[in-house]
């Protein structure tokens, strides 16, 4: 089996040489988590409770290896016929009937198991040799362990099988129904070069899956628990966003080093002259802006303006929404005279990519992965996120509230590294206020710029007002500005009135919505 190497010497130092000794798992993103893939000749244990996906994961790797031309042997110690296993696997997209038989074989160890551990080891190794297998899966180590209750004998079995197969050049994956952190399992774990732990729990009414790269001998896996999805594609892993950044693994190379000084780049405008003037020309590039406001005040309309301004400037834009459907956004744009521009932007080559997820059992790492993938694919320079609450809910639902800040920091860093200017919508609780209030929540602290929208009751009328509360890398004009939402031009920000907070002689036209 593999010799110990200094930690962190896997995919890091000597990367070119190290990379050739790793083989891909065929499971999306799992190679990133493992530090490049499975070390060739390694003994890999996949441990997890019933239903956690051990068999699916191991067989997905087996099919991927067979597709790459490796000679693969899947040996079952489970108490079900291999035909049943094949029927189960047929439902997954990674299944390829043409591989079955050659180069991928499915065999049962039942005959050998009846004769004891030693016979099982001998039979297994002889079969692997006869098949010239260079990727071996042993599915159901519990069945093997059940033959002899002595844990030392089980450990010896693993050692004999792992060593011999490694010497023959084969990578071996063994699935084991066990909690990878159960001390009773430790004697077996010490034999393994790689340990992958699968988690499968019932949280309230939801099943939640996770994957942990517990040990990679000689390598540096991405730490912690990562999201795991099981569907018709098979297994897909989504690395935890926070740990993707420091190592750079799992993050595609960013175009250039973004050496431009954001302060020297043209501002990201709203194409609303009064608002852009308040911002000294627009938002500083590569910053994040919180667009906060009470319900129904016009945040999404303003966000649409920001997106369309980017399109108008020739910049690709991504709009990530959790609230309104595509049809609702289209209707909203239509309502304020921006429908044609919106639809043109969404058309092929229009420059606007609309991503939409229902705010239902969202997986925050899956959302981040999809978002960053689209940003990289489109080269988008502006991102609108509507809204922050759903993303926060998704993070806090699956972990403690402590994760939210770290997740947000990681997301903002990822966006900054890509040179994306972010506008994120968030709701403030008060619908109508007689004075502007803004609490310095953790979210606001992280955002470089804050725009606040509210409805104010004045002289028996409701007025919409906005204020630039904060800009970190730029000057801005403080003070309230009234704005309206028109049927023909969307949001219109009125010039400053000479008397603050009263509004002066110029009144908004009667076509303004909400009046």
């Amino acid at each position, binding site marked *: 089996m593999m010799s110990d190497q200094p930690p962190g010497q896997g995919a890091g130092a000597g990367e070119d040489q190290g990379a050739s000794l790793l083989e891909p798992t065929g499971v999306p993103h799992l190679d990133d988590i493992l530090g490049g893939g499975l070390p060739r000749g390694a003994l890999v244990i996949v441990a997890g409770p019933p239903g956690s996906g051990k068999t699916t994961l191991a067989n997905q790797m087996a099919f991927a290896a067979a597709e790459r031309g490796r000679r693969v042997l899947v*040996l079952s110690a489970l108490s079900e*016929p*291999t*035909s049943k296993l*094949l*029927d189960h696997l047929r439902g997954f997209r990674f299944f390829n*009937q*043409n591989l*079955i*038989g*050659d180069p991928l*074989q*499915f*065999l*049962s*160890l*039942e*005959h*050998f198991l*009846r004769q004891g551990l030693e016979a099982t080891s001998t*039979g*297994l190794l*002889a*079969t692997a040799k*006869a*098949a010239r297998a260079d990727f071996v899966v042993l599915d159901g180590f519990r069945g093997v362990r059940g033959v002899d209750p002595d844990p030392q004998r089980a450990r010896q079995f693993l050692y004999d099988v792992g060593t011999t197969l490694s010497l023959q050049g084969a990578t071996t994956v063994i699935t084991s129904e066990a909690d990878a952190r159960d001390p009773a399992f430790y004697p077996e774990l010490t034999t393994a070069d790689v340990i992958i732990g699968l988690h499968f729990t019932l949280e309230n009414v939801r099943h939640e899956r996770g994957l942990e790269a517990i040990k990679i001998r000689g390598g540096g896996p991405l730490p912690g628990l990562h999201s795991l999805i099981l569907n018709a594609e098979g297994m897909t892993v989504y690395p935890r966003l926070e740990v993707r950044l420091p190592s750079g693994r799992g993050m595609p190379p960013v175009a250039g080093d973004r050496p431009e000084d954001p302060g020297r780049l043209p501002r990201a405008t709203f194409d609303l002259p009064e608002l852009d003037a308040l911002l000294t020309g627009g938002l500083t590039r590569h910053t994040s802006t919180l667009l906060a406001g009470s319900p129904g005040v016009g945040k999404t309309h303003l966000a649409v303006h920001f997106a369309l301004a980017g399109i108008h400037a020739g910049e690709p834009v991504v709009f990530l929404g959790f609230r309104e459907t595509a049809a609702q956004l289209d209707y909203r744009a239509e309502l304020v005279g921006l429908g044609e521009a919106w639809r043109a932007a969404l058309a092929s080559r229009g420059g606007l990519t609309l991503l939409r997820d229902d705010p239902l059992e969202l997986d925050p790492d899956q959302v981040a992965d999809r978002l960053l993938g689209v940003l990289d694919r489109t080269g988008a320079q502006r991102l609108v996120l509507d809204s922050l609450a759903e993303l926060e809910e998704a993070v806090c639902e699956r972990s403690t509230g402590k994760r939210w800040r770290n997740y947000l920091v990681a997301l903002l860093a990822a966006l900054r590294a890509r040179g994306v200017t972010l506008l994120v919508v968030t709701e403030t609780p008060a619908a109508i206020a007689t004075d502007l209030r803004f609490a310095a929540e953790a979210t606001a602290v992280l955002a470089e710029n804050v725009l606040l929208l509210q409805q104010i009751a004045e002289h028996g009328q409701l007025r919409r007002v906005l204020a630039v509360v904060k800009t970190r890398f730029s000057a801005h004009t403080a003070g309230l500005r009234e704005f309206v939402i028109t049927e023909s031009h969307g949001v219109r920000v009125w010039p400053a009135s000479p008397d603050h907070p009263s509004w002066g002689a110029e009144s908004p036209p009667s076509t303004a919505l909400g009046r």
Partner: protein
Amino acid sequence: METPERFLVLIVEDEGSIAGVVSAFVEDLGYHAMVAPHGVAALEMARVRWPALVLTDYMMPLMSGSRLVAELRAEAVSGGHTMPPIILMSAVSPGLSELAGADVVLPKPFDLAQVEALLERFLGRPA
């Protein structure tokens, strides 16, 4: 009196449960069953009692069904035996089954009625 070998069926299957069910069924129909867990054992059994028909899995430990068929052909030539009909029970693709030199492919999971029909076709009904 018919020699038992005329109705001797060699069942080669690494999964004991399937081998058990098929052999019991074959015996119930009046044929005689020999069961081997893999190709190596099957070849040894055949050298002692030459079968009239071989019902074999394709994917087996130690020796695959394809290799077993090739070995039986060689044994038939050297021993002066008639090559028995080969029924391949397997989940492999049809193309691979053809390469194995089987006379008939019985895709898994199969119906025991299909086994009965094939036995009758190749061996006739025992008295």
